[in-house]
């Protein structure tokens, strides 16, 4: 360090080598995580070859790795996700509209805002305990049902939905609101006819990305005692439900190599493909919107 401080004596002793070395070190640090993940993904993709097939997607789980399938977990995950979307979308948008359009900059608003930021940082396993105590215990939704799972994970992603919806609403130019008021519209009419339509693509993108997060959650489902293996497809809100990450967790503890490097790899790849699809939908919505404006 001393040589780099421009003092009277060593002014001009500037190390180019150190500068270049640091640049390369910083670049290497930027890439190390990305490259590691790429290597791991390549590994799991290779391992899944031969295991990820139509039979795997359409069969129930089985103790024999060659018979084991993913269908109940796949359908369970999607059912939970759709219900989560129905719960979080209206509530998340409502909260965001209040915070951006109605609330003044008072103490209560700042408190709500700080609270939302904090909720986004609460460990998912703690949300699982909330689900266990509130939805399973107090409200009697039943251990590991579609309803209990959806409400628990919905609360978990609600802060993310609110924050992204707020950003989308904030991005609507104020001139549009003023124009609406100028036409004699009320606040609610302005929100319904001007703000929400303009903010909707952004809100949708944020919500869908949050749903992607929801579909990967495991710990909350374990805490509400979702069964680790389910053989049938859920047919009601009160059905016991498994989900893809939960099934992966269960299989990963099986000692057989066929499970560890075959069936689980196929499950992981399926989960990642679903996740990729969800995120792509979100990105397509965002790009379409960006092209129009």
């Amino acid at each position, binding site marked *: 360090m001393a040589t*780099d*401080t*421009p003092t009277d004596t060593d*002014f*001009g002793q*500037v190390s*180019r080598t150190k500068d270049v070395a*640091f640049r390369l*070190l*910083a*670049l290497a640090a*930027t890439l*190390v*995580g*990305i490259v590691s*993940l790429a290597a*791991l993904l390549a590994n*799991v993709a290779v391992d899944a070859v031969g295991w990820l097939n139509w039979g795997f997607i359409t069969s129930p789980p089985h103790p024999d790795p060659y018979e084991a399938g993913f269908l109940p977990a796949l359908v369970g995950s999607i059912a939970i996700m759709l219900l989560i979307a129905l719960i979080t979308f*209206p509530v998340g948008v*409502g*909260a965001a*509209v*209040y*915070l951006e*359009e*109605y609330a003044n900059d008072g103490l209560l608003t700042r408190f*709500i805002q700080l*609270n939302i*930021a904090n*909720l986004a*940082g*609460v*460990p998912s*396993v703690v949300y*699982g*305990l*909330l689900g266990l*105590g*509130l939805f399973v215990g107090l409200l009697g939704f039943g251990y590991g049902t579609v309803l209990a799972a959806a409400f628990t994970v919905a*609360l978990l992603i*609600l802060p993310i939905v609110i924050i992204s919806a707020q950003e989308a609403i904030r991005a609507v130019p104020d001139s549009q609101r003023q124009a609406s008021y100028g036409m*004699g519209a*009320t*606040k*609610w009419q302005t929100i319904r006819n001007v703000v929400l339509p303009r903010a909707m693509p952004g809100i949708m993108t944020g919500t869908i990305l949050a749903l*992607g997060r929801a579909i*990967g*959650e*495991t*710990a909350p489902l374990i*805490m509400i*005692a979702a069964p680790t293996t389910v053989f049938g497809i859920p047919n009601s809100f009160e059905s016991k439900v498994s989900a893809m*990450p939960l099934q*992966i*967790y269960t299989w*990963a503890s099986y000692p057989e190599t066929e499970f560890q490097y075959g069936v*689980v790899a196929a499950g*992981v790849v399926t989960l*990642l493909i679903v*996740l990729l699809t969800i995120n792509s939908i979100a990105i397509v919505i965002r790009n379409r919107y960006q092209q129009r404006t």
Partner: protein
Amino acid sequence: MSQPDFSHDGIRTARGKAFRYLFMLCALLSILTTVAIILTLLVDAVDFFAEISLVEFLTGTRWSPTNEPVAFGVLPLISGTLVITVGSALVALPIGLLTAIYLSEYASERRRAYLKPALEVLAGVPTVVYGYFALVYVTPALDTFLPLSTFNALSASIMVGIMIIPMVSSISEDAMSAVPDSLRQASYGLGATKFTVSTSVVVPAAVSGIFSSFILALSRAIGETMIVAIAAGQTPRLVDVTDPAGLFLNSIQTMTAAMVQIGTGDIVGQGEAYKSLFAVGLTLFVITFAMNLVSELVASRYREEYR
């Protein structure tokens, strides 16, 4: 922002009010969630502490919720959590900080445009997938030159570390980007290299933001559940700090992994083990909540520094 209200239609005003309260209710739901979390944890934790004293819980050195003789000392779990936190911090803090410096000071606009989303992917991969990677790829790879147990803190720490890199890098980068360019120009004017400008001007100027990102990332590591439950094992032991190698090479149990172990067991009922879930959960919640709050306060300070 008050708007002139030209509508004298009573029904429309009433409907506007109704929507205002409906939206407010949605926002208040977030506070209700926090209250519900605290109450849920407290109710059963209080029950638990009626049977196991708080002192015994906080100072006990043995954790054995289901096997006789049962013991509910949380210290082994806290020490296990600390091992993972320190291990992942050793991975994520330097790498995340260097990444932030690269993105903010060195990378071209074009390169940033694809590096930043690529980094965000690291935080988007489900943790159960990371846990599986740690167990079946990282541990066998490291096992070729290290005496590793099948379940060990090392590969779990590395995976948690990789997962939280984007948390450190994105918040730190925001803080560095907020440093005014005049400070950099002044330093260049004195003949400083980019290295000196980055490390002696930008990093110190952005230190509160960097600090905030560190705390948030550590808090995420403490609360991380599936990676440690799958890859770090289920061996609650009070770690021996005089043997740093043994800390990471062997199996441990974190607070979160202990909760998963109890949660997957068939003890769903009203026993002590069930209630201990909420006591551990409360401990975890208090620790992470305090850290998030500190991070938020530090971050709100830096946001105002250069206005």
